[in-house]
């Protein structure tokens, strides 16, 4: 017998994915090169290995894609809802059938652990298509009046943290309601969207209904500005969201924005401590903390602070960081060098401002982009790390003494996307939740998602709701 229970590596096979050396833009049902021939490379964040070369959309390509979507809109929107539902159900089933391939692909391109793509992302992606497929023929009964009409062409820009899931959140309701789509995935994670384009072909989706145009911010801006786009949906940073809001101001375009967050995770002294520790870990270390609704501010009642922090530190010492394709990995790679340097600089600032930094003893792989799970104590509301979104595995711990103080501190943020409440007292959950200004409030759990549940923010976290019946409204003329 060896001397310790060391888990042998258990890598998921990457042979289930066949990544081509290059990919084009997906416009009008065909893969094509960019008009100006530009390409960019996408790399695996855990190894810096170049995975593929991707055509980079420019203004001319955006125009082509919007024209294709416009042309397809006439027929697509005229189909009976039950017909559109057939396509969506078919897409959902193909996603389930190809889920292992897509999970491995997403892990390679994004850096997140296979455990999360396999157990969280892909099941949710399929669930969103199934859910909105179910709505497609029931729009008359969705509470928006009789016969609500689609808006037209939806221009959608999504982030790199949940590439395929954000695609599902955007495309499923758009298609169910009869709109056609031009979607720009993030430049660091274009692959799963291009595989989705292939799934659209496999499902026999009419040409032009879904167009995928990988590219950088300029392509996103061109898409948002395009005069023939009727609806803009964006998930990403607050800074870009503000720019989009300015661009569409005064036009007839409808817009929804899902932006940043600085979620408060409030632990009362009567909380189920062991489960709260798990919830804190899920809240901030799920997807390396690269989650807009992450519980990145821990507000803990002073009377249990020491006990809770001891438990939390002990728990963090059992997290396993490393190869994202290993089924036992809890913490994967940061998505890009750029994001890593942003996290690093904010963490340095936290230290410079006097907060106390702690990480478990942690060996980081020599190549790729990595950041050890980190928590800060002695944090006050005045610290940058308590106010700015870090979008990384970094938790700021603050304390409070009374429920009112907890609410005041939780709400004292420019953001308002998510919050968590941990207490054994049901009445306290309701009382506190009703005072929190956040779009999603979890009680005794965190970072749980479901297609039936609307998601969206207050204040600088954006406006509009995705998911649930509410998510239909953003794609309907009501």
């Amino acid at each position: 017998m060896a001397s310790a229970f060391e888990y042998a590596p258990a890598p998921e096979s990457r042979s289930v994915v066949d990544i081509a050396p290059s990919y084009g833009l997906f416009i009008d049902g065909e893969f094509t090169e960019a008009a100006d021939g530009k390409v960019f490379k996408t790399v695996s964040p855990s190894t810096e290995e170049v995975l593929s070369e991707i055509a980079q959309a420019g203004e001319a390509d955006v125009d082509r894609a919007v024209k294709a979507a416009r042309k397809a809109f006439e027929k697509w929107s005229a189909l009976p809802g039950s017909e559109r539902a057939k396509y969506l159900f078919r897409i959902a089933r193909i996603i389930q059938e190809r889920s292992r391939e897509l999970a491995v692909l997403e892990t390679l391109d994004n850096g997140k652990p296979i455990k999360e793509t396999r157990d969280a992302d892909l099941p949710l992606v399929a669930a969103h298509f199934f859910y909105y497929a179910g709505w497609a023929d029931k729009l008359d009964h969705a509470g928006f009046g009789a016969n609500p009409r689609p808006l037209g062409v939806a221009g959608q820009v999504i982030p790199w943290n949940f590439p395929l899931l954000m695609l599902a959140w955007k495309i499923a309701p758009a298609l169910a309601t009869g709109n056609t789509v031009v979607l720009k995935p993030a430049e660091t994670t274009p692959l799963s969207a291009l595989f989705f384009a292939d799934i659209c072909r496999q499902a026999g989706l009419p040409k032009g209904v879904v167009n995928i145009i990988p590219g950088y911010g300029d392509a996103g801006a061109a898409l948002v500005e395009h005069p023939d786009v009727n609806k803009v949906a964006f998930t990403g940073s607050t800074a870009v969201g503000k720019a989009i809001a300015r661009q569409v101001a005064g036009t007839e375009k409808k817009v929804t924005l899902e932006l940043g967050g600085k979620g408060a995770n409030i632990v009362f002294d009567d909380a189920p401590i062991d489960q709260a520790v798990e919830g804190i870990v899920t809240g901030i270390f799920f997807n390396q903390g690269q989650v807009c609704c992450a519980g990145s501010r821990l507000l803990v009642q002073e009377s249990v602070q020491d006990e809770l922090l001891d438990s939390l530190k002990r728990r963090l010492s059992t997290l396993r960081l490393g190869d994202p394709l290993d089924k036992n990995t809890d913490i994967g790679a940061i998505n890009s060098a750029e994001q890593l340097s942003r996290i690093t600089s904010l963490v340095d600032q936290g230290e410079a401002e006097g907060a106390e930094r702690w990480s478990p003893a942690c060996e980081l792989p020599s190549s790729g982009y990595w950041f050890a799970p980190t928590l800060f104590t002695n944090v006050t509301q005045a610290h940058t790390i308590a106010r700015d979104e870090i979008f990384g595995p970094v938790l700021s711990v603050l304390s409070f003494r009374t429920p009112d103080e907890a609410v005041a501190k939780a709400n004292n943020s420019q953001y308002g996307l998510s919050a968590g409440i941990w207490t054994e007292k049901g009445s306290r959950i309701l009382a506190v939740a009703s005072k929190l200004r956040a779009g999603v409030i979890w009680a005794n759990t965190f970072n749980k998602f479901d297609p039936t549940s609307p998601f969206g923010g207050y204040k600088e976290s954006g406006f509009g709701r995705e998911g649930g019946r509410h998510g239909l409204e953003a794609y309907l003329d009501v």
Partner: protein
Amino acid sequence: MPTSPKLSASLDQGGAPSHALGDVAASDSTLRRFLHGLPGVDTVGLEARAASLGTRSIKTTAKAYAIDLAISMVDLTTLEGADTPGKVRALGAKAVHPDPTDRTTPSTAAVCVYPDMVATAKEAVAGSGVKVASVATAFPAGRAALDVKLADVRDAIAAGADEIDMVIDRGAFLAGKYMKVYDEITAVKEACGTSARLKVIFETGELSTYDNIRRASWLGMLAGADFIKTSTGKVAVNATPANTLLMLEAVRDFRAQTGIQIGVKPAGGIRTTKDAVKFLVLVNETAGADWLDNHWFRFGASSLLNDLLMQRQKLATGRYSGPDYVTVD
């Protein structure tokens, strides 16, 4: 790319007790207040955590290690009305050499029998280091007078039992008579003296809530249990990953507060190697590596051993042999 090992523990959990727990059992009311003041257990969260640890992928060298470790932790058990001396002797022989075709196979931790079979069992494992455990205290219902239970324990110890597995009075516990349960445990512990370690069985399936299981765990540890054990194996719900996880949290927290380490024994319903490995993962990631040997963790099981042996043979030979290549009892 190299996989880095798990982030090494940087907290020292041992050391001197930081809280005096000595007087919480001073009276019925202090004991009740203490047990009801323990943090609550959220059912959904506890079961989700147990399930997520169940997805750890344990292969190759880690699996070989886990199988041998699990074999060495088995309390090979026969608790049937139909037990005969012959059956107990066979069990003892198997405990000493679980796989006669491969002498590198570790012995099990103990054989577990009724008190009247202790002497036979003791003879069967003599000189091997395998312990003899006995379920005394009117097992499995525990519905007898304290005198009877203590006599049962003394019998078993007189016959040479190294370990006593006692059941608590669930009726008293559910009625809130914590002091009665506490007193019974301390009396049995006293009867065990220094010659036997005491395992306290809660019958978690009958306690029904996780809050109750946590309270029972603390009650048992305060009263002097050397081990806390999930169940008798005689009811519908026995050991589960969730109730074992909860008890592992309890022993971990108890050691943090008192410096005293207590063992854990899930019993009943663990039949496959896959299940056993999941429990070892729970131990490894909840209480920690200090509990990963048979002094601190046991499996109460009878059919588990053969599956472990078949999986061990498969790892050694690359082929799956089948049930005729391991011994029936």
